C-alpha cells in the first residue's frame, strides 16, 4: 500500500488506518464526531499528502490548461487558486481539482489521490497536439507533503509560527511562506467549509510541520483529524467528492458545478457535449435530502419521490452538527423541481426525507 510521509506518525498517534484507494490512511484518531466538531468550533489538522500535484509549465501552459479544464484559467492572477475540473469529450468528469497560478507560464494542479495516474496520462495525451509543443508536464506528487489546517482558530494557530501577514492572504489565494522554519506554499483553501489553510511542504519536512502545528494548536483545541471527519465536513457543506458526486458518467452541470463550467470561454475538452446537454435540457440534478426519521443514508441507496423511483444517494452520513441523516442524491430534475414527498430506501424500508437547500450546514 502507498504511504504518506506521516504514515509512521499516524500509527504512533493511535489512528485507525484504512485502505483508501490504495493508500494506508488514518480514518480517525479520537473519533469522527469529536474531530468534526473540533473543526467547526476550533481547529483540526489533516494529512492530505496522498493528493497529487501536477506541474504544467511553458509558454503554452495557459492555452493548454484553458483547453484541458472547464473553468476560465485566464481570469487567474499570480497567487490565485481556482476550483475546476477535467472533462472527457462526453462531458463526463475525469477529475476535479484546484489549479494554482504560480506565474503566467507556470501552474500547479492539485488532484485526487486515486486519479493521479489517470489525470497525468490524460493530460499527456492532450499535450501531444502540436499546438502544445514545448509544454512541460511533471507529476511531482511525491515531492510534496500536504497538510490542511482548518477551523475558526486556524489563522490564530498559524500566526504564531510565521511572519507572513495572514490578514493579507485572502480565500483562494496562496503565497510562499516560512512556517515553523519550513519554506512552503501557503494556500487559504480547504474542503471543510471553515476558514483554513493548505500547506504544501517538501515531503521530508512534513513530519516537522505536523508536529509544529499540533503543538501550536494544542491550547486552541486543535485535534488531529482523519478522512472520516474530512468526509462528514465536506458533506455538510455539499462539496462534491470524485467517485460519488462526480464521475465519467455525471456531467458537471448535473452536479451543481455550472458555476465553474465556462461554456463561453472558447474551445475546451467536453464543451460540445456540455453545450448540447444544456440545450437539450439537463435531466438529472444533485439535491440535498434530510431524513425526518432516525437513520443513516448511504451511497447507492435508492431515492423515491411520491412513491416513484427518482434516483440514488451519491453520499450520505449522519450529520454531526444536525444530528440527523443527510444525503446528496442525483435525481430526476423534473421531480426535483415539483416533488413534495421524498423517501430514501434503507434496508427495504422507506424513510421519509425532506428536500433541503444546500449546504446543509
Amino acid at each position, binding site marked *: 500500500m502507498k504511504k504518506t510521509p506521516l504514515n509512521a506518525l499516524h500509527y504512533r498517534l493511535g489512528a485507525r488506518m484504512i485502505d483508501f484507494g490504495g493508500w494506508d490512511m488514518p*480514518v480517525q484518531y479520537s*473519533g*469522527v*464526531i469529536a474531530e468534526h466538531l473540533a473543526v467547526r468550533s476550533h481547529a483540526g489538522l489533516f494529512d492530505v499528502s496522498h493528493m497529487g500535484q501536477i506541474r504544467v509549465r511553458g509558454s503554452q501552459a495557459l492555452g493548454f490548461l484553458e483547453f484541458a479544464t472547464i473553468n476560465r484559467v485566464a481570469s487567474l492572477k499570480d497567487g490565485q487558486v481556482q476550483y475546476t475540473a477535467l472533462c472527457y469529450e462526453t462531458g463526463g468528469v475525469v477529475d476535479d481539482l484546484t489549479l494554482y497560478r504560480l506565474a503566467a507560464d507556470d501552474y500547479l494542479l492539485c488532484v485526487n489521490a486515486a486519479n493521479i495516474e489517470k489525470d497525468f496520462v490524460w493530460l499527456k495525451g492532450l499535450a501531444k497536439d502540436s499546438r502544445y509543443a514545448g509544454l512541460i508536464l511533471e507529476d511531482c506528487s511525491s515531492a510534496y507533503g500536504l497538510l490542511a489546517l482548518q477551523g475558526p482558530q486556524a489563522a490564530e494557530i498559524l500566526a504564531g509560527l510565521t511572519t507572513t501577514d495572514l490578514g493579507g492572504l485572502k480565500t483562494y489565494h496562496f503565497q510562499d511562506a516560512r512556517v515553523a522554519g519550513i519554506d512552503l506554499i501557503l494556500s487559504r483553501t480547504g474542503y471543510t467549509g471553515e476558514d483554513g489553510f493548505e500547506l504544501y511542504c517538501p515531503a521530508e519536512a512534513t513530519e516537522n510541520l505536523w508536529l509544529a502545528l499540533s503543538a501550536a494548536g494544542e491550547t486552541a483545541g486543535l485535534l488531529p483529524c482523519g478522512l*472520516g471527519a474530512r468526509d462528514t465536513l465536506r458533506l455538510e457543506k455539499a462539496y462534491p467528492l470524485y467517485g460519488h458526486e462526480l464521475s465519467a458518467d455525471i456531467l458537471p452541470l448535473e452536479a451543481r458545478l455550472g458555476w465553474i463550467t465556462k461554456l463561453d470561454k472558447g474551445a475546451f475538452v467536453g464543451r460540445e457535449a456540455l453545450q448540447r446537454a444544456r440545450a437539450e435540457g439537463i435531466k438529472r440534478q444533485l439535491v440535498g435530502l434530510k431524513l425526518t426519521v432516525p437513520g*443513516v443514508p448511504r451511497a447507492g441507496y435508492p431515492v423515491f419521490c411520491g412513491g416513484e423511483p427518482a434516483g440514488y444517494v451519491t453520499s450520505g*452520513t*449522519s450529520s*454531526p452538527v444536525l444530528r440527523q*441523516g443527510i444525503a446528496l442524491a442525483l435525481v430526476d430534475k423534473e421531480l426535483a423541481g415539483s416533488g413534495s414527498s421524498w423517501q430514501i430506501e434503507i434496508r427495504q424500508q422507506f424513510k421519509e426525507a425532506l428536500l433541503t437547500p444546500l449546504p446543509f450546514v
Partner: protein
Amino acid sequence: MEYPDHLKYTEEHEWIAVDDDVVIIGITDFAQKQLGDVVFVELPEVGDVLESGKPFGVVESVKAVSDVYAPISGEVLEINEDLPDEPGLLNTSPYEDGWMLKVKLSDPDELDELMDADAYQELVEEE
C-alpha cells in the same frame, strides 16, 4: 479494554448476562471501539423471536453499518428504549446503560457455546 468476568461472550463481539433462563444482550467494548461513534440503532420488538446466529438488529456508526447477531434463541422480553434516541450509550457504557435486549431463553444448552472473559480476551488479542 474491559471484559467483565461475570459475562459470557461471542465471536461476533456480543456479551450475554445470564440470570436463570433470562439473558441480557449487548455489544462488547471491543465492538464499540471498532465501530466508532454509533449514530443509529435498530432493535427488534418485544415479542419477536430470535434465532441463534441470525441478525436481530443493526448498529450504524458514522462510517459503517453492522448487523448484530443473536447469540442465543428466545423471545424478546424487553428492549432498551433509550438506545434509539441515544445510540452513543453503546460507546459510553457498553456493559450497562448501553444494554440492548432482555430475552427469555428457549434452549439453555446454547449457553454452553459461549466464551468466558478469558477466552474472549484471547480472541480479541488475535484480531
